[in-house]
């Protein structure tokens, strides 16, 4: 059981976390941040294991992980 927090203002919407998440609980975002990027959305339904692969690939260090 884990959860993540995405810093929307730091995110550049590259969606690498969406593709790297082994549980597919990070979804492509639909709303824009102040710079015009689309940060992804975390689906907090208890499936996330807190493996932190999303945080390891994130090029903008915008993800924090709890487990």
């Amino acid at each position, binding site marked *: 059981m884990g959860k993540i927090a995405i810093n929307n203002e730091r995110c550049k919407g590259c969606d690498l976390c969406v593709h790297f998440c082994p549980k597919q609980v990070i979804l492509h975002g639909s709303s824009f941040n102040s710079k015009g*990027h689309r940060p992804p959305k975390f689906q907090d339904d208890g499936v996330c294991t807190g493996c932190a692969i999303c945080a390891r690939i994130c090029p*903008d260090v915008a993800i924090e992980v709890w487990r």
Partner: protein
Amino acid sequence: MQKVYERPESMADVQMSYCPGCLHGTVHRMIAEVIDELGVREQVVGVCPVGCAVFMYEYMSCDMIEAAHGRAPAVATGVKRVLPDSVVFTYQGDGDLAAIGTAEIIHAAARGERITTIFINNTTYGMTGGQMAPTTLLGQKSTTCPTGREAMREGFPIRVCELLATLDGPIYLARVAPVNAAGLVKTKNAIKKAFQKQLEGRGFSLVEVLCNCPTQLKVSPIDSLKWVEENMVPYYPLGEFVDR
């Protein structure tokens, strides 16, 4: 629940200037994590390249120096010899290390300087507009070889790790590709090992990281990682070339 992953202390809390999906930021963070884990932040002196990573000194919370194009190993040599207790690393791209800085990196390696080099190979000059680099693959298009690189016209790509492996100075040479979950772990381990080798004080260490450049490849970030895996890895085999 407790926090298991956050921004490393050696990394400044600022927005980076890289394009979306560029792995420069990922590798910066791995270096910062290794510095934190080894507890050497007060001894670290980093040397920045010229290229996309030119602003690296803004993103790291350790001492950094900006070197002239390709001359980072020469600057690092000076720092390490004046301050032998410091931990010195250079961070260089392929245009910086494999083109204009070829002489510096080969002689720094041949002298066995006790420094660590993180070499980012993305097969292109990202910052200046996607010109052909010495590491551009055969057949790969760039703004200065728009029909694709031809061996009889532009020559062959340089494999830096194999080139330096012929010397006796390097004690650790590895090539890694952080393009999947396993690759991320291996990259971090290789960078950590390179820093540990420097702390042993026996010679030169270099980690070549195969990176993407989604902007110059003109593909999405995830497709650029697939491109690295499918096209770069066959020509630039992964692994440790020297470990002594």
